[in-house]
Protein backbone atom coordinates (compact mmCIF):
# COMPACT_ATOMS: atom_id res chain seq x y z
CA UNK A 1 0.00 0.00 0.00
CA UNK A 2 1.30 3.43 -0.96
CA UNK A 3 1.68 5.76 2.01
CA UNK A 4 0.84 9.46 1.83
CA UNK A 5 4.47 10.44 2.36
CA UNK A 6 5.73 8.40 -0.58
CA UNK A 7 3.09 9.59 -3.04
CA UNK A 8 4.83 12.80 -4.23
CA UNK A 9 8.20 11.01 -4.22
CA UNK A 10 6.97 8.25 -6.52
CA UNK A 11 5.29 10.80 -8.78
CA UNK A 12 8.49 12.82 -9.09
CA UNK A 13 10.52 9.67 -9.66
CA UNK A 14 8.21 8.61 -12.47
CA UNK A 15 8.56 12.05 -14.10
CA UNK A 16 12.34 11.75 -13.89
CA UNK A 17 12.25 8.20 -15.25
CA UNK A 18 10.11 9.34 -18.19
CA UNK A 19 12.75 11.94 -19.02
CA UNK A 20 15.51 9.35 -18.89
CA UNK A 21 17.16 10.23 -15.61
CA UNK A 22 17.17 8.76 -12.15
CA UNK A 23 18.31 11.37 -9.63
CA UNK A 24 20.50 10.38 -6.74
CA UNK A 25 18.59 10.58 -3.44
CA UNK A 26 19.65 13.53 -1.30
CA UNK A 27 18.94 14.14 2.37
CA UNK A 28 17.82 17.74 1.93
CA UNK A 29 16.36 19.06 -1.31
CA UNK A 30 18.27 22.18 -2.34
CA UNK A 31 16.94 23.63 -5.64
CA UNK A 32 20.01 25.86 -5.94
CA UNK A 33 22.49 22.98 -5.81
CA UNK A 34 21.91 21.49 -9.25
CA UNK A 35 19.48 21.56 -12.16
CA UNK A 36 18.21 18.10 -11.22
CA UNK A 37 17.24 19.24 -7.75
CA UNK A 38 15.73 22.44 -9.14
CA UNK A 39 13.53 20.40 -11.48
CA UNK A 40 12.59 18.04 -8.68
CA UNK A 41 11.66 21.04 -6.54
CA UNK A 42 9.50 22.40 -9.38
CA UNK A 43 7.57 19.13 -9.60
CA UNK A 44 7.04 19.18 -5.83
CA UNK A 45 5.75 22.76 -6.02
CA UNK A 46 3.34 21.85 -8.83
CA UNK A 47 1.99 18.87 -6.87
CA UNK A 48 1.70 20.64 -3.50
CA UNK A 49 0.30 23.94 -4.83
CA UNK A 50 -2.10 22.01 -7.06
CA UNK A 51 -3.38 20.04 -4.07
CA UNK A 52 -3.80 23.20 -1.97
CA UNK A 53 -5.65 25.03 -4.76
CA UNK A 54 -7.96 22.03 -5.31
CA UNK A 55 -8.73 21.90 -1.60
CA UNK A 56 -9.49 25.65 -1.45
CA UNK A 57 -11.69 25.53 -4.56
CA UNK A 58 -13.51 22.50 -3.13
CA UNK A 59 -14.18 24.27 0.17
CA UNK A 60 -15.36 27.37 -1.69
CA UNK A 61 -17.73 25.29 -3.82
CA UNK A 62 -19.19 23.54 -0.78
CA UNK A 63 -19.64 26.62 1.41
Amino acid at each position, binding site marked *: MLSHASLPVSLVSS*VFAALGSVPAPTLVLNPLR*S*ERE*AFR*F*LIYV*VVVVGAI*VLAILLVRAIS
Partner: protein
Amino acid sequence: MESATAVGAHEHEHHGPPPANQSSRVESQFLGMVLFIISEVMLFGAFFTAYFFIRVVADDPWPAEGMELPVAIAGVNTAILISSSATMHWALESARNENRNGLRAGLLTTFLLGFAFLCIQINEYANIGFAPADNAQASIFYGLTGLHGAHVFVGLLLLLFATTRAFRGHFTTKQHRGVEVPGIYWHFVDVMWIFVYTTIYIL
Protein backbone atom coordinates in the same frame (compact mmCIF):
# COMPACT_ATOMS: atom_id res chain seq x y z
CA MET B 1 67.23 20.36 -1.58
CA GLU B 2 65.47 18.37 -4.24
CA SER B 3 62.09 19.84 -3.33
CA ALA B 4 63.51 23.37 -3.48
CA THR B 5 64.81 22.64 -6.95
CA ALA B 6 61.44 21.24 -7.99
CA VAL B 7 59.63 24.30 -6.70
CA GLY B 8 62.10 26.55 -8.50
CA ALA B 9 61.55 24.64 -11.74
CA HIS B 10 57.78 24.86 -11.29
CA GLU B 11 57.94 28.61 -10.76
CA HIS B 12 60.13 28.93 -13.82
CA GLU B 13 57.53 27.08 -15.97
CA HIS B 14 54.62 29.29 -14.85
CA HIS B 15 53.75 32.15 -17.20
CA GLY B 16 51.26 34.95 -16.82
CA PRO B 17 49.51 36.22 -13.71
CA PRO B 18 49.08 33.92 -10.68
CA PRO B 19 45.84 31.92 -10.56
CA ALA B 20 42.92 33.69 -8.88
CA ASN B 21 42.35 32.82 -5.24
CA GLN B 22 39.26 30.67 -4.71
CA SER B 23 37.99 30.86 -1.17
CA SER B 24 34.85 28.83 -1.90
CA ARG B 25 34.29 25.28 -3.07
CA VAL B 26 31.48 26.56 -5.29
CA GLU B 27 32.31 27.71 -8.82
CA SER B 28 32.04 31.44 -9.29
CA GLN B 29 29.49 31.19 -12.14
CA PHE B 30 27.33 28.90 -10.06
CA LEU B 31 27.65 31.04 -6.93
CA GLY B 32 26.71 34.14 -8.93
CA MET B 33 23.49 32.54 -10.16
CA VAL B 34 22.62 31.26 -6.68
CA LEU B 35 23.06 34.72 -5.12
CA PHE B 36 21.11 36.28 -7.99
CA ILE B 37 18.18 33.88 -7.49
CA ILE B 38 18.15 34.52 -3.74
CA SER B 39 17.92 38.27 -4.40
CA GLU B 40 15.15 37.63 -6.93
CA VAL B 41 13.14 35.69 -4.37
CA MET B 42 13.25 38.78 -2.15
CA LEU B 43 12.21 41.01 -5.07
CA PHE B 44 9.21 38.82 -5.85
CA GLY B 45 8.47 38.75 -2.13
CA ALA B 46 8.10 42.53 -2.13
CA PHE B 47 5.53 42.37 -4.93
CA PHE B 48 3.64 39.53 -3.24
CA THR B 49 3.58 41.61 -0.06
CA ALA B 50 1.83 44.41 -1.96
CA TYR B 51 -0.62 41.88 -3.39
CA PHE B 52 -1.48 40.40 0.03
CA PHE B 53 -1.74 43.88 1.51
CA ILE B 54 -4.49 44.72 -0.97
CA ARG B 55 -6.35 41.46 -0.51
CA VAL B 56 -5.91 40.77 3.20
CA VAL B 57 -5.12 44.04 4.99
CA ALA B 58 -7.17 46.44 2.84
CA ASP B 59 -9.72 43.68 2.14
CA ASP B 60 -10.32 44.94 -1.40
CA PRO B 61 -12.06 42.62 -3.89
CA TRP B 62 -9.86 40.62 -6.25
CA PRO B 63 -10.05 41.22 -9.13
CA ALA B 64 -11.54 44.69 -8.91
CA GLU B 65 -15.04 45.26 -10.21
CA GLY B 66 -15.05 45.42 -14.00
CA MET B 67 -11.78 43.49 -14.26
CA GLU B 68 -11.86 40.04 -15.79
CA LEU B 69 -8.72 37.91 -15.83
CA PRO B 70 -8.19 35.36 -18.63
CA VAL B 71 -7.75 32.33 -16.37
CA ALA B 72 -7.95 29.74 -19.16
CA ILE B 73 -5.36 31.41 -21.38
CA ALA B 74 -3.04 31.85 -18.41
CA GLY B 75 -3.62 28.16 -17.61
CA VAL B 76 -2.45 27.22 -21.10
CA ASN B 77 0.56 29.46 -20.55
CA THR B 78 1.25 27.65 -17.27
CA ALA B 79 1.21 24.31 -19.08
CA ILE B 80 3.59 25.72 -21.70
CA LEU B 81 6.02 26.91 -19.04
CA ILE B 82 6.00 23.64 -17.09
CA SER B 83 6.55 21.76 -20.36
CA SER B 84 9.52 24.00 -21.09
CA SER B 85 11.06 23.02 -17.74
CA ALA B 86 10.69 19.36 -18.70
CA THR B 87 12.42 19.96 -22.05
CA MET B 88 15.16 21.91 -20.24
CA HIS B 89 15.75 18.97 -17.95
CA TRP B 90 15.72 16.62 -20.93
CA ALA B 91 18.34 18.78 -22.66
CA LEU B 92 20.68 18.60 -19.69
CA GLU B 93 20.20 14.86 -19.25
CA SER B 94 21.00 14.48 -22.96
CA ALA B 95 24.21 16.46 -22.42
CA ARG B 96 25.14 14.11 -19.57
CA ASN B 97 24.40 11.05 -21.73
CA GLU B 98 26.42 12.22 -24.76
CA ASN B 99 23.23 12.76 -26.76
CA ARG B 100 24.15 15.91 -28.64
CA ASN B 101 20.98 15.94 -30.77
CA GLY B 102 18.85 15.62 -27.65
CA LEU B 103 20.72 18.54 -26.08
CA ARG B 104 20.14 20.73 -29.12
CA ALA B 105 16.49 19.71 -29.54
CA GLY B 106 15.80 20.16 -25.83
CA LEU B 107 17.32 23.63 -25.66
CA LEU B 108 15.65 24.77 -28.88
CA THR B 109 12.26 23.46 -27.74
CA THR B 110 12.69 25.17 -24.36
CA PHE B 111 13.50 28.44 -26.07
CA LEU B 112 10.49 28.18 -28.41
CA LEU B 113 8.13 27.31 -25.56
CA GLY B 114 9.41 30.24 -23.51
CA PHE B 115 9.04 32.53 -26.50
CA ALA B 116 5.46 31.30 -27.00
CA PHE B 117 4.74 32.04 -23.32
CA LEU B 118 6.00 35.59 -23.71
CA CYS B 119 4.04 36.18 -26.94
CA ILE B 120 0.82 34.93 -25.32
CA GLN B 121 1.40 37.20 -22.33
CA ILE B 122 1.97 40.23 -24.55
CA ASN B 123 -1.22 39.37 -26.44
CA GLU B 124 -3.01 39.07 -23.08
CA TYR B 125 -1.85 42.56 -22.10
CA ALA B 126 -3.07 43.96 -25.43
CA ASN B 127 -6.58 42.53 -25.01
CA ILE B 128 -7.15 42.50 -21.26
CA GLY B 129 -9.14 45.72 -21.15
CA PHE B 130 -7.59 47.57 -18.21
CA ALA B 131 -4.43 49.62 -17.65
CA PRO B 132 -1.94 49.62 -14.74
CA ALA B 133 -3.09 53.09 -13.66
CA ASP B 134 -6.78 52.11 -13.36
CA ASN B 135 -6.64 50.86 -9.76
CA ALA B 136 -4.37 49.18 -7.21
CA GLN B 137 -5.41 45.70 -8.31
CA ALA B 138 -4.48 46.46 -11.92
CA SER B 139 -1.12 47.88 -10.79
CA ILE B 140 -0.34 44.71 -8.84
CA PHE B 141 -1.50 42.52 -11.73
CA TYR B 142 0.80 44.25 -14.21
CA GLY B 143 3.58 44.53 -11.64
CA LEU B 144 3.70 40.83 -10.76
CA THR B 145 3.06 39.40 -14.20
CA GLY B 146 5.34 42.00 -15.80
CA LEU B 147 8.13 41.25 -13.33
CA HIS B 148 7.80 37.59 -14.15
CA GLY B 149 7.67 38.33 -17.89
CA ALA B 150 10.92 40.27 -17.57
CA HIS B 151 12.49 37.21 -15.95
CA VAL B 152 11.24 35.01 -18.77
CA PHE B 153 12.85 37.46 -21.22
CA VAL B 154 16.19 37.22 -19.38
CA GLY B 155 15.82 33.43 -19.33
CA LEU B 156 15.26 33.47 -23.09
CA LEU B 157 18.49 35.41 -23.56
CA LEU B 158 20.37 32.83 -21.46
CA LEU B 159 18.73 30.03 -23.45
CA LEU B 160 19.67 31.74 -26.71
CA PHE B 161 23.33 31.76 -25.66
CA ALA B 162 23.17 28.13 -24.49
CA THR B 163 21.36 26.98 -27.66
CA THR B 164 23.82 28.77 -29.92
CA ARG B 165 26.73 27.22 -28.04
CA ALA B 166 25.09 23.77 -28.21
CA PHE B 167 24.75 24.04 -31.99
CA ARG B 168 28.42 25.01 -32.15
CA GLY B 169 29.30 21.86 -30.21
CA HIS B 170 30.46 23.53 -27.00
CA PHE B 171 29.10 21.19 -24.32
CA THR B 172 30.32 17.73 -23.30
CA THR B 173 29.29 15.13 -20.75
CA LYS B 174 31.61 16.69 -18.15
CA GLN B 175 31.53 20.34 -19.22
CA HIS B 176 27.95 21.56 -19.33
CA ARG B 177 27.88 24.34 -16.75
CA GLY B 178 26.59 26.68 -19.48
CA VAL B 179 23.39 24.62 -19.64
CA GLU B 180 23.07 23.79 -15.95
CA VAL B 181 23.11 27.40 -14.71
CA PRO B 182 20.41 28.65 -17.16
CA GLY B 183 18.48 25.47 -16.27
CA ILE B 184 18.40 26.33 -12.57
CA TYR B 185 17.32 29.87 -13.43
CA TRP B 186 14.60 28.59 -15.78
CA HIS B 187 13.15 26.28 -13.13
CA PHE B 188 13.20 29.17 -10.65
CA VAL B 189 11.21 31.29 -13.13
CA ASP B 190 8.71 28.43 -13.48
CA VAL B 191 8.31 28.03 -9.72
CA MET B 192 7.66 31.76 -9.45
CA TRP B 193 5.02 31.53 -12.17
CA ILE B 194 3.22 28.74 -10.29
CA PHE B 195 2.83 31.12 -7.33
CA VAL B 196 1.94 34.11 -9.54
CA TYR B 197 -0.68 32.14 -11.48
CA THR B 198 -2.17 30.63 -8.34
CA THR B 199 -2.47 33.87 -6.41
CA ILE B 200 -3.35 36.26 -9.25
CA TYR B 201 -5.60 34.13 -11.44
CA ILE B 202 -7.09 31.31 -9.39
CA LEU B 203 -7.44 32.22 -5.71
